[in-house]
């Protein structure tokens, strides 16, 4: 077993335990559980960073050679986004969702295509690395915005229905989750734009071969860009109610995840 596999296994366990402990904290509200959960989240992110780093050394290029590795990298980005949100907004209630999602993504990576042939020469291109890293970082932020949207909808439902009001004490304030969701998308959208533009540059210079204009991945990426653009527009200009914009975020992440599972003729590295 390689060093990266051991580190990834450690991260996987920490994700699961972190999600479970923070989930238990939602029910029991014990400071010890909260701090243990936060510690496990940090440990998971560090172990995952070690796994990515070691994989880079093993492959001698960015470890995004197949969908499995890209999913795993996305899981890491989600955990980093969660840690940032924890520091900025004390969003520990999003921990079970975020760490659970990271666990799920790493597990799914185990089932995703991981065939390895000759390393794609494109991977040594800085523009391609920028394309992949920007998009994964944006997706990490969007994943956490999704968690915030779920929390918003739950809290909104509780406040309107007046059932389960005791849960509100366990969750961050309604306005905080809404602000956090917007900030995460505002952070992720420029990264997504950068990633899409970098991809366009690579494709236009012939790096993706023929037919890239109608490639399913590229088309879906544009759809994702439009969805999050629409969210920002609706949030900033159109004055949509937060419930409606929260649903946009749910759709947005579903499209992001779809990118990893639909086949593509031109995207050979996840």
């Amino acid at each position: 077993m390689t060093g990266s596999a051991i580190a990834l296994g450690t991260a996987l366990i920490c994700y699961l335990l972190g999600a479970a402990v923070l989930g238990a904290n939602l029910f029991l509200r014990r400071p010890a559980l909260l701090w243990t959960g936060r510690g496990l989240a940090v440990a998971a992110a560090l172990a995952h960073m070690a796994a990515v780093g070691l994989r880079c050394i093993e492959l001698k290029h960015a470890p995004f050679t197949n969908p499995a590795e890209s999913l795993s990298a996305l899981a890491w980005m989600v955990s980093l986004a969660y840690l940032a949100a924890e520091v900025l907004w004390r969003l520990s209630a999003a921990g079970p969702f975020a760490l659970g999602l990271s666990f799920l993504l790493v597990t799914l990576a185990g089932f995703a295509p991981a065939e390895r042939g000759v390393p794609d020469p494109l991977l040594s291109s800085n523009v391609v690395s920028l394309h992949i890293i920007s998009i994964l970082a944006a997706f990490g932020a969007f994943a956490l915005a999704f968690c915030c949207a779920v929390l918003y909808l739950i809290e909104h439902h509780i406040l309107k229905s007046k059932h389960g009001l005791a849960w509100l004490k366990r969750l961050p304030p309604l306005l905080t989750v809404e602000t956090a969701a917007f900030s995460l998308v505002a952070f992720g959208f420029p990264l997504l734009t950068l990633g899409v533009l970098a991809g366009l540059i690579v494709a236009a210079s012939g790096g993706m071969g023929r037919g890239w204009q109608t490639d399913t991945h590229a088309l879906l990426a544009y759809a994702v860009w439009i969805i999050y653009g629409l969210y920002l527009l609706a949030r900033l200009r159109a004055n949509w109610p937060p419930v409606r914009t929260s649903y946009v975020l749910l759709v947005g992440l579903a499209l992001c995840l779809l990118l990893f599972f639909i086949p593509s003729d031109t995207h050979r590295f996840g």
Partner: protein
Amino acid sequence: MRLLMVGLAHQTAPVEVRERLAFSSSAALAQALLSLKETLGPAGECVLLSTCNRTELYAAAPEDVSAQDCIVRLTEAAHGLPADDLEDYFEERRGHRAVEHLFRVTAGLESMILGEPDIVRQVKTAYAQASDVGTTGPTLNPLFHRALSVAKRARTETQLGRGAFSVGHAAAEMAESIFGSLAGRSILILGAGDMSEATARHLAASGANSVLVANRTFDRAAHLAESLNGRAISYDAFPNHLAQADIVIASTAAPHTIVHKPMVADAVKSRRRRPLFLIDIAVPRDIDADVADLDGVYLYNIDDLRAVVDADSAERRQEAERAAAIVHNEAVTFSAWLRTQRAAAPLVSGVRAKMDTIKQEELQRLRQRLAHLSPEEWQVIEAAFTSTVNKIAHAPTVKIKDYAADGSEAAENKLDTVREVFGLGAAEERAP
């Protein structure tokens, strides 16, 4: 000296009895403390806790002072009431039971509203008053310090002190669930009654610092606004201020609703997605129920807020068991420590007295033999003697405390040996 608690509380005495024994002014309480101190003697100590739900005396009393004596003095101090009238309502606790009772009271476990936080301040004040009057000492000082730290522990380690204790508190909690920090949030108060004032005070205590008050009678609005550092506005103009308010408290005496859906819908349009929290504590209601259908508007009436209080109260009841276990363990530990102090104190002071006597005798003898020495030289000699005695006494003092803490028969035998060695006489020096 033994620890004693006598008093009455809401569990056993109705309000008409409690109010007769209440010490509402600091002067009356100080007078009562001094009067009780007279009964307890020079070594006695006392603290009087008087709140609307209880009047309790905590005392370190000599063996010859009974609880009955304390009750008589206490009722006399309370407006000269005869003890016979109230005696049946009094409860008495001694030793460990008194310790645990004080710990439970301070933690809010004996409060009418379980876990309510105000009792901690009341216990702190009662102790400070007794301290100022000079009726506390080596028994009650550590007892009250411990009670306050145990209360803090019980509240920190459990959810006992969390949640809403009143409708106003529930409103503030709900507002925090929506907005997070209330700092900078604005409140619009419709109706200048007691309920709106109490609710606004809770919100202001949580940080809301911009208050507008509208009332049919402008003077009353101005009066309430002044007390809340806010501004009074004309009653008819309140719809124009809905868009700026984050929290609206409606508690007018109007016989029909005064806030309607179109009015709020207009306000919401210009709020740019900021939520609006409407608190309707008026009966009959001030706000149309269909206002709650609007996006971003959260409407809570008096029943909704009472349900929050009830739910929190149920949660606190579940936590009370855990808090009670913490309090019990702390009371056991403190009682054991107190016993040790009491058991060790006479023997330690006996040993010290014996050594001091020897020191004085030897110094006296030396003075006769060395009469030519100057006062400065005698000071040096005396300091050397004192230092020697302290060093010799240190090890036996530590051992005596250890044996007293042990409490076993073997340890008791060792204490007897110490008494024998120092010629203190076992029987009369044993701790009570």
